[in-house]
């Protein structure tokens, strides 16, 4: 079974892509495309705040398209986590909250990780893979 989640991105508060990974056979991106998508999303997210007719909008949370869903969670510190998944995938918001938890534990608490820099933490990779594999059975249609 192919995973419902295609890819996961993390962008720092200034819009730099600090983590990218594919989780399925579909929708895989090469380095250039992942960087391009991340910076596009960062800008669109910012523009969407300006578009809002009401006050207190903090940007797009869900983008639904015919071939994919993009779900975004922005922490209050400005770091954005977003996944691209099969259309109609449920539970992506809680998945992102869990990713945030793993980021806190295995990235930020790693004393050798430099804040705002690309994430190269094996433990983080490992626990993410576990999380997404575990979720495979739970999320989806």
């Amino acid at each position, binding site marked *: 079974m192919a995973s419902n989640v295609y890819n996961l991105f993390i962008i720092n508060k200034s819009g730099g892509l600090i983590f990218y990974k594919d989780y399925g056979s579909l929708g895989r991106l090469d380095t250039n495309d992942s960087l391009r998508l991340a910076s596009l999303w960062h800008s669109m997210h*910012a523009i969407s*705040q*300006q578009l809002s007719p009401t006050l207190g909008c903090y940007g797009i949370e869900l983008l639904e398209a015919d071939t994919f869903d993009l779900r975004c969670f922005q*922490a*209050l*510190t*400005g*770091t954005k986590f977003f996944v691209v998944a099969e259309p109609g995938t449920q539970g992506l918001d809680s998945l992102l*909250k869990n990713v*945030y*938890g793993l*980021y*806190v*534990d295995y990235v*930020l*608490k790693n004393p050798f990780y430099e*804040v705002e820099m690309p994430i190269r933490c094996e433990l983080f990779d490992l626990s993410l893979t576990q999380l997404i594999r575990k979720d495979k059975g739970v999320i989806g249609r």
Partner: protein
Amino acid sequence: MSTGFGLMAPLLRPSDASAPNVEKVNAELFTLTYGAIVRQLLTDFEDVDEVNKQLDTMGYHIGIRLIDDFLSKSNVTRCTEFKETAEVIAKVGFKMFLGVTATVANWDADGTECSLILDDNPLVDYVELPETCQGLYYCNVLCGVIRGALEMVSMRTEVKWVRDVLHGDDTFEMRLKLLKQVPEEYPYKDDE
């Protein structure tokens, strides 16, 4: 003493009912480790003011990482004003990471400066300052933590101790001053 220092559930707000089972850490290990760090800094820098500065900087680096831990585990939402921020630090933040709560008091007229008063401070459980260290703010790391954490959520602050039991005062009082609220909006103007 076995009260934990790690993250202590349950937290205070109803919305925190789902707070995760956070791990606790032996309190003695924590206070002794902190004590050892302060001693080492004193040995390395041989100057109390410099040690105060170093502790603050260390706290700052902890704070900029810890804020996300706090946000992800506490389920608190965006604060609407600085007064709310101070309350959240005092009641949720201190509780989560130190296992005690602080009281917010002495607001100035603009609502940008207040005191956090700690009656119980587990960092100093076994500490007596020697004559040579009278200028040392032993818990200065906490000021740095708060400054660093608030900076990550767009608030520049100045945080310092004004009363310290180790200096003979009756309680611990930290002064928290909001210098500038950096707006979160996209920092570019249309014509740039």
